[in-house]
């Protein structure tokens, strides 16, 4: 009874396959008969402010370019780099891509899937308005540019701080004092931060060292040990829950937004969300060390696919829909991400927003990423140590030794530069 039908279905499926082999397949690419062009843009954005921003920026572009359709392709975060790398085999990829530059840049730039933007960048009238950290070069060629940046800051539950009579802390000492004061009444839930054994956890932890004038290239085992001891103390004294060891930034944000935590370390992309909280939220900069408050600049950077057919058009899109003053403001308003253009720092839209100020200030004093092929390995090693110490898997000294060994080895593997 089942068989004839199954056979028919099988025949149909095979038929489909045969037909397809002769027909379509390579249906991407830009341009068509009626002069309508298509630009394909790859992102890993998900629902929320980033997507709204993208839509509005595309609408801005459409006003002046009705003949160019923007097709956005959302790729899951994890798959974007490998998918992009795979395009090298087919010589066919996106026209424009927004990539996770702080981790993937050396990989993408060296693999030849991004187009060299040096010519476009040099000819860009506004290029002097962008800080060096917004322009990503590999072997003296520009491959990625950032129109916005994402930074970490300290979020606080103003209601809880007021009740406890605590002023928003500015330095590490003040912060430590506040944490200690709050710990007894908020056992295990004073600070919500990420401690996942990944680049995310490392991103949240490294500003401790940046504040002491150290970074991935200059930190010693002793520096790392001291700072891991601080975090171990937090974990043991009930400042951060042990779960922090597996939390990513989204988990940490979720915890902070529950209203149980007086403090949360997280990024400005959550600002839109923060305004909807049912308690009063305040923001300040990451607590400063002796050398000030510094965090790493994060966010996505824009690149042009190496196999884009009309790179000039793609660059035009990058300029108008991303780098321009108007586009940057649209992006800021929809997503809370900080424009990198210096001429917007005094813009009323931005200065009138109190919550965003600490992030804007942080943008001008960022730490430097290691300029090394193996940057991802270096960051992961620190993330692992951080997580191991929070959970109690390792003692700070052991974790620091392992991490420093891994960071040093990775740095050499990647050519030694930093």
């Amino acid at each position, binding site marked *: 009874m089942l068989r004839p039908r199954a056979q028919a279905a099988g025949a149909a499926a095979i038929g489909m396959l045969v037909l397809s082999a002769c027909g379509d397949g390579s249906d991407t690419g830009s341009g068509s008969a009626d002069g309508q062009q298509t630009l394909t843009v790859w992102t890993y954005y998900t629902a929320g402010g980033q997507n709204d921003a993208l839509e509005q920026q595309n609408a801005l572009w459409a006003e002046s370019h009705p003949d160019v359709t923007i097709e956005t392709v959302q790729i899951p975060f994890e798959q974007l780099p490998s998918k992009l790398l795979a395009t090298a085999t087919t010589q066919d990829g996106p026209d424009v891509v927004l990539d996770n530059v702080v*981790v993937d840049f050396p990989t993408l730039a*060296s693999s030849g899937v991004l187009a060299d933007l040096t010519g476009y960048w040099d000819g860009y009238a506004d290029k002097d308005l962008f800080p060096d950290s917004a322009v990503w070069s590999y072997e003296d060629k520009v491959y990625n540019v950032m129109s916005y940046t994402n930074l970490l800051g300290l979020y606080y539950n103003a209601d809880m701080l007021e009740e406890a009579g605590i002023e928003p802390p500015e330095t590490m000492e003040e912060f430590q004092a506040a944490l200690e004061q709050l710990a007894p009444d908020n056992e295990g839930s004073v600070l919500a931060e990420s401690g996942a054994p990944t680049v995310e956890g490392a991103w949240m932890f490294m500003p401790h060292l940046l504040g002491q004038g150290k970074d991935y290239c200059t930190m010693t085992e002793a520096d790392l040990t001291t700072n891991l001891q601080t975090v171990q103390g937090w974990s043991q004294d009930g400042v951060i*829950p042990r779960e922090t060891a597996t939390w990513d930034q989204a988990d940490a944000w979720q915890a902070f937004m529950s209203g149980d935590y007086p403090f949360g370390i997280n990024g400005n992309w959550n600002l839109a969300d923060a305004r909807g909280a049912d308690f009063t939220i305040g923001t300040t900069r990451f607590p400063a060390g002796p050398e000030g408050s510094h965090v790493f600049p994060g966010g996505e950077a824009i690149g042009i696919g190496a196999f884009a057919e009309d790179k000039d058009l793609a660059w035009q899109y990058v300029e108008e829909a991303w780098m321009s003053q108007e586009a940057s403001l649209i992006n800021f308003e929809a997503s809370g991400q900080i424009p990198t253009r210096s001429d917007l720092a005094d813009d009323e839209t931005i200065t009138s927003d109190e919550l965003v100020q600490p992030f804007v200030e942080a943008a001008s004093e960022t730490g430097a990423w290691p300029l090394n092929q193996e940057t991802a390995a270096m960051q992961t090693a620190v993330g692992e140590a951080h997580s191991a110490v929070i959970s109690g898997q390792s003692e700070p000294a052991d974790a620091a030794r392992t991490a420093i060994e891994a960071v040093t080895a990775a740095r050499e593997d990647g050519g030694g530069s930093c």
Partner: protein
Amino acid sequence: MTAPPETTVRPGAEGSVESPAPGRWRRSRVHLGPYLVPAAVVCALLCVYPLVQMGRMAFSDVGPANLIGEWTFSGTENIREVLGSDGFWEATRATGVFTAVLLVVDLTIGYVAAQALARRGRLSSIVLSLMVFVWALPPLVSGSVWKFLLAGDGAINAVLQLVGIGRVDWLSDPSLALWAVSGVAAWASLPFAILIIRGGLLSIPTEVLEAASIDGAGPIRRAVSVVLPLLRPTLMVLVILIVLYAFRSFDFVYVMTSGGPGTVTTTLPFLAYREAFTTYSFGTGGAIASLSMLAVVVLAIPYVLGVRKEEGQ
């Protein structure tokens, strides 16, 4: 390999292979090779090349710059580097625990549940449908649900606190996390195990079991002396597939703990993935994946030998 099999029968193997007249040479019209050809062709076209590439990767210096392009042969450097790192051995141990939990849960609970669910009735039907529905949810979803349920302020801890046990850090206590993740992975694969075992149980002709009951065999004796031997091929395949899963998939580790806290739940496949796709050391990643494969091959030897011996039973 696909040459038509010879259909001669060894005199010593009476009753094992089909042989109407033991000891007599006979030509059969049956050729089994051709039935294998379509599957072999598809695998040759699409499965072999990725495998070869993975093997080559293990012996080459492959980074992002030359991933698509020329790979320089680097001998056993990657393998030596991997074997010399503590992380690899920790991951091997974690994979062992993970595999063991999966095997024990899926085989014991799986067998008992399959027995229970093999009976007709509305209850079986509902529970089986429910389990399959949950099994069909992607690990991203079922893993996230358990991450919430096992969280510090999650439902499980709420219940534990109600009964006075207090909060347990399921996923962040270094001595518990691996067991918790393995447990969830076992929970998630249990419906699959039940489906397979149940399918095997249903293939046992009713008469065989009835005959055993008439002989006065109790349920346990029946299970041991009648059912289990008949299920052996099914259980063998299940064991192999579970081991295979544990050595090549990492979905629950990825979703629930990212290999942490620290490196506690980093299993071999997760380590390989992280090396290759987070830090882009494709050579090391390929080496770890190839070594995992070797481990599975070693574990699979009893299965392959079992297949060869099946005729002797």
